[in-house]
């Protein structure tokens, strides 16, 4: 090799040298064409990623932030070459490879000494085009073929040899897969178990003894079906099932971060969700209202409140472009997770590593929400709004002179303060102040301004501490008057919603590496490419529109029968809430890193059933709850445990501990103290102040544990992001920062501590004991029977009866401790 090179040089004549120079020039031109078309978009203009500018020879030789990229004359050891040749990671350009010819050219070009035709006048459009080419990440047919992206197919129910067990189509699917494993379904659970299971599952409180009695007495064949229908009609169904949805949308009544400000109107959204479940609002409409209620259903009050969905995330008190895209990220990620069952968060910085989710999809979805701005929308008529504003202004006018009086009272103390501060100033500041304005140095100017602006700024508590008593008393009186007037101001009811600034959406960009300093192409709204083949058509906003109708377009896709994910994800969630696990056990990740469905055909069948029945959730509840699969006993059997210990094939019903909310609700219901009123303002149960002794801005006005105003369902507990109710927190309440698809079910000692020692539980145990005495009299046997009826929906066994009788009579507080024990035993907190 070396020899041949030498000989080549020797034989070159003058003419050949000229020709070679021409070759070099041509090589330089070809190299710059290749780089311009493929690389300069990110390493030149408009972006200079990694500090590397490939537009000029000079900057190519200088290299990037991490050092040189070409070793002149040695392509083999040049970073640029190794990366385009895919010899080194990360390979370039991202996600694709240059042609072999181009790679060979670049090799020859570096070896030839990097001759170059500087790219000076590349047109803006050209470099943009190069960039936009990079942003493309086409979805292959094979990728589209992933089970979750395919449209559900309605399979016929499998034919089963043993036709006795199946009650519904669901059962045929379940039995077919049990058959394949040689497993048998479990026998039907007792009626006591069934009614308790149905109550805890659908309404989240145990049945009353009367309800149990009535159900046991009803020997008609459809008694259970009637029970399910009755519970679905109960207003408490919405309270129970709204809570699942609130987990998904990371609902909270406060904004998080430094101030964690209370959101006084967030509960309207919570009530909207409860109402929607109770009314069996079609799920597609439910989603559309939350994404684009203003655009799709103008004037509909419910659809307005639904928009609160877009405001539920944490809110940074600092407002910058960065915090804005962080908030949008939260909306995009929550929507994709919760409604579509895919993870898109990683596509903020790069194409998804496992799933066919392009970074561009992420930014097209971001573009959907980009135009939105926060708004507190009055829920009153214009006339009423006008009256409220006028009345408020009138009262504020009355407060003005009072405020002036306060300032006058404070003045002498203020003056004293200021004089003292002036005397304490360091030498250089006093010099600064003494120097005539025009003669001050830059530093002196700053210091002088600072003194002028801050010397009179005195914090209230400091001021009050030094005020004479009589002045203080006078001031107090006026402060009270102002507060009285504040109370007279009419309250304006508003909903937390969003608005946009007109039909035209502001430009949003593809952000390379997720960075605002690396803005790529302007993004148009779009949907998930892997789940929709083609361009989803976004509507043009009407002439008089005040919004871009991007959300309307997206919402229509979400709720369209064309969407393979939305209905599948929801029926899977419903299955999970009923059976403890979904058919897909990763309910918010239907991608490659998630689990595959245990019963894919059943999932598809349920999905088509859902859509064909107007996206009715109650229809799915009925299908599931009336199945033999759901009605099985939850007890183990050896064959099942041996063959399928995780119960993936559903050879028995699941046993599962209820959530913290349901434990608390069950306690209240059992104690007989539960206030069953539905909806409205949140409640503030007691929290030990040492747990939130935080700041003047973050407080919790907890009511006493004895206060019946707090005896409401737990879905109404004010959900403060930084001050969780300990009982909820310890029982795995979601952190409300991001979407929670499935709660952890941990078993930890602090749960036992709360259930043993917490005052709320003790207070309710006393109520329960009193209830037993009230309703069963002083006879211990009757008390025990009643306690089992109320707390566990069944009669005690002989041994339980004997233990209880002995325990209650063994010491004076026996009955209260017995009542307390009922709240604590495993059976009380498990859905049987």
């Amino acid at each position, binding site marked *: 090799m070396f020899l041949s090179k030498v000989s080549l040089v020797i034989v070159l004549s003058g003419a050949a040298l000229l020709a070679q120079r021409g070759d070099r020039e041509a090589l330089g031109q070809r190299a710059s064409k290749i780089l311009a078309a493929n690389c300069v978009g990110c390493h030149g203009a408009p972006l200079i990623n990694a500090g590397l500018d490939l537009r000029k020879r000079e900057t190519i030789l200088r290299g990037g932030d991490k050092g040189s990229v070409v070793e002149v004359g040695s392509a083999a050891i040049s970073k640029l070459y190794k990366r385009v040749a895919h010899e080194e990671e990360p390979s370039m350009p991202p996600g694709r490879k240059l042609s072999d010819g181009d790679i060979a050219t670049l090799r020859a070009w570096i070896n030839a000494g990097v001759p170059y035709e500087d790219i000076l006048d590349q047109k803006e459009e050209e470099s943009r085009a190069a960039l936009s080419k990079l942003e493309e990440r086409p979805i292959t047919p094979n990728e589209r073929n992933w089970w979750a992206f395919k449209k559900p197919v309605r399979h016929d129910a499998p034919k089963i040899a043993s036709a006795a067990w199946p009650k519904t189509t669901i059962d045929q699917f379940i039995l077919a897969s049990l058959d394949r494993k040689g497993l048998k379904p479990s026998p039907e659970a007792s009626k006591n178990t069934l009614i308790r299971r149905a109550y805890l599952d659908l309404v989240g409180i145990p049945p009353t003894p009367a309800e149990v009695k009535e159900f046991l007495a009803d020997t008609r064949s459809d008694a259970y079906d009637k029970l399910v229908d009755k519970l679905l009609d109960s207003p408490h169904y919405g309270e129970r099932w709204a809570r699942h949805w609130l987990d998904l949308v990371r609902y909270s009544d406060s904004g998080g971060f430094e101030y964690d400000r209370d959101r006084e109107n967030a509960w309207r959204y919570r009530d909207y969700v409860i109402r929607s479940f109770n009314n069996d609002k079609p799920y597609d409409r439910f989603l559309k209202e939350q994404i684009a209620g203003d655009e799709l259903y103008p004037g509909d009050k419910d659809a307005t409140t639904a928009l609160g969905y877009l405001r539920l995330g944490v809110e940074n*008190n600092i407002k910058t472009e960065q915090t804005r895209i962080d908030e949008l990220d939260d909306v995009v990620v929550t929507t994709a997770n919760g409604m579509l069952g895919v993870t898109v968060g990683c596509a903020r910085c790069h194409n998804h590593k496992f799933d066919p989710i392009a970074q561009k999809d992420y930014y097209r979805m971001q573009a959907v929400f980009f135009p939105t701005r926060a708004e507190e929308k009055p829920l009153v008529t214009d006339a009423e709004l006008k009256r409220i504003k006028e009345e408020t202004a009138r009262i504020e006018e009355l407060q003005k002179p009072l405020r002036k009086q306060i300032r006058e009272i404070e003045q002498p103390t203020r003056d004293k303060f200021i004089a003292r501060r002036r005397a304490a100033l360091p030498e250089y500041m006093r010099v600064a102040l003494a120097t005539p304005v025009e003669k001050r140095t830059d530093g002196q100017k*700053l210091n002088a301004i600072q003194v002028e602006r801050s010397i009179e700024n005195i914090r209230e508590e400091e001021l009050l501490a030094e005020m004479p008593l009589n002045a203080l008393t006078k001031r107090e009186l006026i402060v009270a008057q102002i507060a009285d007037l504040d109370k007279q101001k009419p309250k304006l009811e508003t909903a937390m919603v969003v608005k946009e600034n007109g039909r035209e959406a502001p430009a949003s960009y593809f952000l390379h590496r997720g960075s605002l300093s690396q803005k790529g192409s302007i993004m148009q709204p779009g949907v998930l490419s892997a789940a929709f083949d083609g361009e989803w058509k976004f509507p043009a906003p009407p002439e008089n529109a005040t919004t871009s109708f991007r959300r309307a377009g997206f919402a229509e896709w979400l709720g369209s029968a064309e969407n393979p994910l939305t209905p599948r994800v929801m029926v899977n969630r419903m299955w999970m809430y009923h059976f403890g696990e979904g058919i897909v056990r990763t309910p918010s990740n239907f991608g490659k890193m998630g689990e595959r469905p245990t019963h894919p055909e059943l999932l598809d069948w349920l999905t088509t059933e859902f859509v064909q029945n107007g996206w009715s959730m109650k229809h799915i509840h009925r299908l599931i709850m009336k199945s033999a699969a759901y009605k099985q006993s939850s007890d183990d059997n050896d064959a099942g445990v041996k063959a399928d210990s995780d119960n993936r094939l559903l050879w028995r019903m699941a046993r599962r501990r209820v959530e913290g909310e349901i434990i608390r609700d069950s306690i209240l219901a059992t104690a007989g103290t539960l206030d069953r009123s539905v909806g409205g303002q949140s409640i503030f149960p007691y929290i030990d102040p*040492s747990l939130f002794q935080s700041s003047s801005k973050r407080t919790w006005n907890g009511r006493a544990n004895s206060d019946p105003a707090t005896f409401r369902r737990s879905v109404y507990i004010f959900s403060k992001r930084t001050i969780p109710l300990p009982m909820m927190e310890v029982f795995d309440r979601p*952190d409300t920062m991001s979407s929670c698809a499935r709660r952890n*079910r941990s*078993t930890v*000692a602090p749960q036992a501590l709360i259930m043993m020692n917490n005052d709320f539980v003790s207070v309710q145990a006393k109520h329960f004991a009193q209830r037993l005495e009230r309703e069963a009299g002083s006879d211990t046997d009757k008390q025990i029977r009643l306690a089992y009826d109320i707390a566990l929906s069944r009669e005690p066994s002989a041994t339980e009866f004997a233990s209880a009788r002995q325990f209650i009579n063994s010491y004076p507080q026996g009955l209260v401790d017995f009542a307390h024990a009922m709240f604590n035993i*495993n059976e009380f907190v498990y859905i049987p």
Partner: protein
Amino acid sequence: MSQRFFSRRELLWKAGGGIGGLALANMLQGASTSPLAPKAGHFAAKAKSIISIFCYGGVSHMDTFDPKPMLAKRAGETIPGKKVVPSQGTPGGLMPSLWDFKKYGQSGLDVSDLFPHVATCADDLAVVRSMHTISNDHAPALYQMNTGSIQTGFPSMGTWVTYGLGTENQSLPAFVVFTDPRGGPIGGAPNWGNGFMPTAFQGTQFRPTGDPIVDLKPPQDMTPERQRKWLDFMGKLNAEHHQKNPQDTELAARIESYELAFRMQTAAVDAVDIDKESEATKKLYGLDQEISSYVGRQALMARRLVERGVRMVQIYSGGGNFNDSWDAHWDLKENHTQHCTETDKPIAGLLKDLKSRGMLDSTLVIWHGEFGRLPISQRMSGRDHNPYGFTVWMAGGGTKGGTIVGATDEFGLEAVDKPKKINDLHATILHLMGFDHTRLTYMHNGRFMRLTDVEGEVIKEIVA
């Protein structure tokens, strides 16, 4: 360490991983062990526990461990060619430190008169003078210092460490947090939260007076005998219920959690019972003086907890807002004199006590705020937040005492020599605890998450 999935059947214990009783252990054979059971890191490490002293509000580095004589020379002037943007209000000129510095120990470490007692431990301190952080605002900066991210919803360092190492004492929480009597830090519980990890790994708040844990103690009229009787009765009822499904580990775990809670009632009280300490020890921690007694108690309890196998203790000095924390916007002199005096003796006492008990090697002590303070004046006599440059120090746990790493510029404004990110600090702490920070991961939302996200380099200079 690869990600650990927790199956439904796996037991999650917050305060205890051990399943007591041989019978139960046998019954649970085949089930995975508790996530809090002690486990090894990626490599052997000296440090077993962490005590973090968090000077919440932001401590001034120019007035404590990073002397800047230039400030006195240029008092009242501006920094040439630099426009300093404060977080609030109008910027002033350069403000000299209000305290004198001296050199201490064989290493000749500079410490100001604010920390005369800590100064006597100079040769144990590894000081990083070139820290910088992203946010200029308390909550995000606190979150970043604790979780690596300025957003909420990420696991705190204590969570990561207990996730990785479990804990040595199953009757105590693995990760304990003490807050200031004047209030908790801004941002609240997410500062020691488990983020996207199971609650088993979250920090547990201990109160320094009364019962350490809320609901730790039964109501007054509930005697231990009565409670024992009650538990036995419940045990009978649970056993009958459990008989139907004896292999259900979740039910078994719940039964055991009550026994553990019962034991914790005494174990936790005992762990914080500093009356068992000698008068000399109490004095060492500054308990004999009102001003330092609060942090002193916490520091002493921290030692007792670490001694009993607790993995991480975090002490917040300063709470609430304004002067209740280290946030010296108004009056630096009053503010830092107060907070330094509150903490100086307790911190020095802790270091000396750990050392004399041979525990300093296995205990990593970290002293830090969420950011530093600016070299210019604010509101005449205060200093504003400075995320561009600040100091943290570490002691024990395999660090190299008497070291100084990095530097801020001559005014103390920006880290200029060997600037270190919070990710670097976290990488170093994990390294000292026996982890390669790039391999301690947890799968969340389709991503392998790390405390250090995608960055972080170990600060090798301070590793012994």
